[in-house]
């Protein structure tokens, strides 16, 4: 009869045959698909960026030589920097440079683009991870508190508080933090730039304010997600099962609530990880932090196609990798998940 049941099972809807191949294979297939997708997406993005920056008024030669240079001189500068000629040609040139690894020279800074980008990338990664480390546990705590108190006064209170925080523009929060901690208490330096390259403790110290500012901006939404997820797990029937099994509360939370609650959150976390590591132009500008975000803003404003496209590529790679990472995490956490084409 067990044979029959197995057949019945095999026929039962919603069940995908060949699932016993297990997580490893699912991770591998996902990796396989992404390894094809990522380059394609990046390629499109690069074209888009290169074409968009072209539409920005102004020209690098003028920006470099200033208002007193004659048009002739500006033209000469443009020529000597290979800025003339059809865009397709320049794009292909950029592409070959980028692929071959010896990226071009930034027009704004007049230095090779790659070390520039990676130098700023390191700082941004540091800041991003720091913010992330502050953000996630806090969101988990607040979110779960809310879930356990769902609909209660605590819940509403936290919601409103978080929303208010997250809806005050980053630069306002940042300024207030600066005035209090940097100028008032003189705990941390105002401008993190010069110290961002110091030893770890020093970096941690100078990065605290920017990180906090960043974290605050994302806290509300993430906490909200945790809240929803946890509330869902708490009302789920398997939670009732666990309770009626007579499990200890801690066991219930650890084994049954936590994992299920986190699944919906994880996706969002992935996206945030991407954006955080991609650098926040506003915060970096405000704190004078030498990160990728600020760098790209300058590149965009001063029309530096090479630097901008290179930078966008890097942030793109990071965002996509972060997504990939979380998707793998999802697979490991939720045995049901599989990424069919189109939903990945």
């Amino acid at each position: 009869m067990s044979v029959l049941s197995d057949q019945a099972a095999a026929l039962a809807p919603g069940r995908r045959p060949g699932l016993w191949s297990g997580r490893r294979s699912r991770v591998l297939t996902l990796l396989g698909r992404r390894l094809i997708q990522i380059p394609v997406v990046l390629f499109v993005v690069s074209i888009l960026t290169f074409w968009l920056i072209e539409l920005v008024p102004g020209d690098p030669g003028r920006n470099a030589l200033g208002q007193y240079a004659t048009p002739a001189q500006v033209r000469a500068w443009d020529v000597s920097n290979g800025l003339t000629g059809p865009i397709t040609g320049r794009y292909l040139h950029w592409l070959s440079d980028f692929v071959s690894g010896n990226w071009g020279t930034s027009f704004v800074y007049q230095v090779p683009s790659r070390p520039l980008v990676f130098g700023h990338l390191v700082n941004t990664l540091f800041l991003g991870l720091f913010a992330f480390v502050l953000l996630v546990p806090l969101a988990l705590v607040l979110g779960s508190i809310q879930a356990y108190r769902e609909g209660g006064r605590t819940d509403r209170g936290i919601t409103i508080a978080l929303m208010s925080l997250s809806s005050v523009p980053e630069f306002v929060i940042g300024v207030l933090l600066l005035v209090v901690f940097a100028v008032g208490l003189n705990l941390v330096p105002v401008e993190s730039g010069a110290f961002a390259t110091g030893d770890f403790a020093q970096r941690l110290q100078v990065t605290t304010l920017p990180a906090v500012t960043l974290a605050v901006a994302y806290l509300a939404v993430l906490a909200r997600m945790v809240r929803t997820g946890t509330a869902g797990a708490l009302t789920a029937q398997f939670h009732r099962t666990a309770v009626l099994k007579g499990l200890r509360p801690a066991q219930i939370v650890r084994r049954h609530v936590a994992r299920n609650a986190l699944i919906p959150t994880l996706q969002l976390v992935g996206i945030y990880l991407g954006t955080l590591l991609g650098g926040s132009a506003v915060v970096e500008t405000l704190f004078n932090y030498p990160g990728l975000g600020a760098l790209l803003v300058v590149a965009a404003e001063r029309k530096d196609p090479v630097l901008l496209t290179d930078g966008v590529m890097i942030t793109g790679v990071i965002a996509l990798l972060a997504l990939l990472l979380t998707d793998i995490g999802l697979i490991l956490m939720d045995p049901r998940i599989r990424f069919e084409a189109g939903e990945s």
Partner: protein
Amino acid sequence: MPLNISSPPKAGRRAVVTTVAVAFALVLAACSSSGSKTPSSGSSSAAAAGGVYNLGLNTPTGSIDPLTTADFNAMYVVGLASANLIIESPSGKLEPQLASSWTQAADKLSWTIDLQPNAKFSNGKPVTASDVIYTFNQILGASSQSPAKSSFTGIVKSVAAGSDGKSVVFTLDTPYSDFPYLLTGANTWILPSGTKDTNWISDPVGAGQFILEKYTPGQGVTYKKNPYYWDASAVKVSGVSAKFFNDDQSELLAFQSGQIDQITSDPSIKAALGTSYRQQRAGYVKFDGLVFNVTKAPFNNVKVRQAVAWALNRPAIAQTVYSGNATVGNDVPTFPDYAVQPQGLTARSANTAKVKQLLGNQVISFTITSYQGTQGEQTYAQLIQQQLDATGSFKVKLNLLTEAAYYATTSSTPWLNAPVTITDWANRLPTQLYSLLYAPGATWNASHYDNSQLDKLNKQYEATTDQAERQTLANQIAQIQWTDVPVIVAAFEQSDVYLGQAVHGSFPNGQQFNGGFDFRGITVSH
């Protein structure tokens, strides 16, 4: 036994608490390390006497290269490591730098510049005539991209070594009595012969007071004192550490928390700092010219231009836009520090009656084009709009572009073609400014103004050396500029710097490019 079952699950609570603890631990970790001492920058080389001067600059935008550098911050970066032949003091007097003296030939068609005997580059090599010649050939050369080129075209014919080999002779096309002034300022820094003009920053050799140690794009520069500087004994600080800021506020806060030793004043800074800090006057920097395109209606009508000029409240502008660090102007582009000041002009002031008289009852509406700059153009534009609208005779709109878009050579080049523009003009000789702003066909003649009479007078002025004659010519020139008002010069801005408590002494020549970013006599205590 009645019982109400609504058990608030104590379940997660413990778990929650633990997580809280973790989170706060993290935060504390971060803060505790913040609790420790604030890093004093450049502590690496701070040991030496005089200390390291912490400078705050806006992030340089243009290229960083002695020949082509265009924006003030880039000039500062280059200037600290470079030296001119001659510099100009805030009061407009010429002072020796790499040149010890300069004399005009009898025929007025050549100038001989004698070099300091002990002038050396940062690599220890002496500054020779050939270096000077090389430098100026680079500036004047056909392939030159240097903005300085335009100052010399039509003036300098050739540069050659003097007979004694310790001097350089500039041969001119026409007599030019203020020629030495052209040797001050940016892009005329002397380079060792053979310097690649493209990537100076990779091998920054110069004859300046400091040696550029490390340049980090977008972050900052560090310098150490240059022992080979011809007047090295007078330089007391052991080095300079410049940090780049993209944001005025973070710069202000950095100054207040003592991380940088100076900050350039502007209304917001002044409002924040008030009188609690020492101020350092640094001479005249620029004026923001309100330029009319005289070929476009309604500004082809001189009455309209005059009406605008009479509608402005100049003291208010000097106060609001330049926080009082400015001298009211009278629509004549002659900086107050220049030796020959025009005389006999009625000083214009806000005068609604005059405006009405010039315009009748018609209301003129137009758009002022400028850019969102840190140098106050933005405030200036808004203030002008306020003042003109207040008279009731004008309806003014603003169109503030990004700097890049405003100066773009591609497409319409707004700053040269828009009907009314606001552009800043650095401190230069009146005649220079004439040939840039007013001369027919001049590249930057945004006013498209054309007056052969004025042209003739300027030629004469450049040629003559006789003081009385120069004065009368200056008066005539000013009279025309004042009457036709192709450009309104409301005020001349003086750069004004707040100095931190750690700074002692004062900058002998301000901190202007034509003053050579002169740190002699300055010491810092930290």
